[in-house]
């Protein structure tokens, strides 16, 4: 209790107020994030409508094996994140640390696979610009611009999530959390799940929808 009392910032009256404020803050931030990606989704929908055939052709060039592995990695990481939160709620510090590290590990795995995929994409001239492949009709390039921007922005978010979890790991290491106070873990979990959900959408729009 004494430990948790320290964590109340001076502008708050008590811990419940601080917890509620932080949680609402994260939800508000996620609302912003949804609209941030929303602009990309809108552009995608508009161009998919205008250039249906070119998009379908271009979409078949995405590497579904990498995409599927990554989807599996991220979904698993969301599961381990949930287990981390559960451990925090129970006040079990060791499992908390373990699950957090596992989540970070899976996140890094995602980035690694994504890097390999990017490498192969570039190799196949799927990076937009002067060297873009001539096999695709011109509007196909717009699909690939959106592919790079969407997955790129998502990867930046994931990297930020890994950084966030690293801080949480450090805090857990210093035994900052208890069954009473573990709100930072919950909030980071919210963010992590959000990044995961965005990926599921990207997976559907960039990898799956073009192969029927």
């Amino acid at each position, binding site marked *: 209790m004494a430990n948790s009392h320290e964590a109340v910032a001076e502008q708050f009256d008590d811990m419940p107020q601080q917890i509620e404020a932080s949680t609402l803050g994260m939800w508000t931030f996620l609302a912003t994030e949804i609209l941030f990606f929303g602009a990309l989704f809108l552009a995608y929908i508009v161009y998919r409508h*205008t*250039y*249906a*055939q*070119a998009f379908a052709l271009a979409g078949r060039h995405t590497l579904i094996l990498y995409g599927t592995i990554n989807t599996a990695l991220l979904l698993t990481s969301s599961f381990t994140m949930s287990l981390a939160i559960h451990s925090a709620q129970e006040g079990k510090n060791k499992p908390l640390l373990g699950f957090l590290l596992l989540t970070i590990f899976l996140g890094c795995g995602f980035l690694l696979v994504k890097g390999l995929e990017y490498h192969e994409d570039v190799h196949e001239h799927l990076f937009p610009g002067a060297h873009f492949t001539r096999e695709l*009709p*011109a*509007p196909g390039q717009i699909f690939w611009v959106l592919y790079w921007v969407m997955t790129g922005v998502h990867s930046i978010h994931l990297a930020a999530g890994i950084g966030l979890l690293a801080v949480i790991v450090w805090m857990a290491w210093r035994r900052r959390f208890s069954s009473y106070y573990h709100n930072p873990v919950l909030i980071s979990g919210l963010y992590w799940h959000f990044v995961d959900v965005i990926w599921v959408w990207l997976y559907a729009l960039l990898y799956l929808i073009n192969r029927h």
Partner: protein
Amino acid sequence: MTFPILPEQASKIATQTDNLCWGLVSISAAVCLIVFVPMIYFLFKYRNGHPADRSPSNLPQTRIEIAWTILPLLIFMCFYVWGAKAYFNIERPPPGAMEINVIGKQWMWKVQHPEGNREIDELHVPVGRIVKLTMTSQDVIHDFFLPAFRTKQDVVPGRYTTEWFQADKIGTYHLFCSEYCGTSHSHMEGRVIVLSQADYQAWLTEGQPGTTLAESGERLFRELGCSGCHLGQSVIRAPPLQGLFGKPVPLNDGTVVIADEGYIRDSILLPAKQITGGYTNDMPSFAGRVSEDELLELIAYIKTLGSQSP
């Protein structure tokens, strides 16, 4: 220095827009009276130090609030309908228009008449005729603004937009580019010269280059090799173009589009975008090989094919 109050009215649309404007000016003046007269009266009557009855009033507050929510809403809706109806008149050219092409480029306007006449920064039209402009830009977005006719339309690269007017007064009128387009935006202006029927005919014949727009298009059609596949008995199967213009075209993916200027343009520049049902995409793209001027000539030619069809 002149002191103009109202812009010149040179078409029915101009009168229509001005009437709408006067309607709004009246209602605005009424609202100003309703708000400012009581406000100034209250400021005077209830100023500190001036004796007045200041006991809380028993006005039916909710009823007043509902009244001044509903009333403005109703008035606004009237103006909405008025504005929308007039807008349809502006956006939809009546039938029987003479068609002229306009190409915007930094920082000039190029005009193509169907008879083959071309002009720059000037547009000669006969009085009383409905003139429909088919417009595009070869670089950035411009806007073809004719204040005397109260009409304007963005001129967007990569697509055709249309604008129409019917001048009912002979004279010379301003033409402005009203969408910011770079360094010399303010010098991208010109004149619309409205002539009598006879003067217009004389102007046309005087500047007649010998070939009409469609004839130039036909020559291009052969030079670019379009005729090899799209006309007559060719080895390669390509959709025939006779009678195509303005008709519905079923596409490969099951949808149907109308073969308008935009469709023909896309079919030349981005053949893969919309493939005619029953055909494969064998046509090369002509993007970068035909200019905006030439595209409009080709379209003019394909339109004449439409009228020649049996």
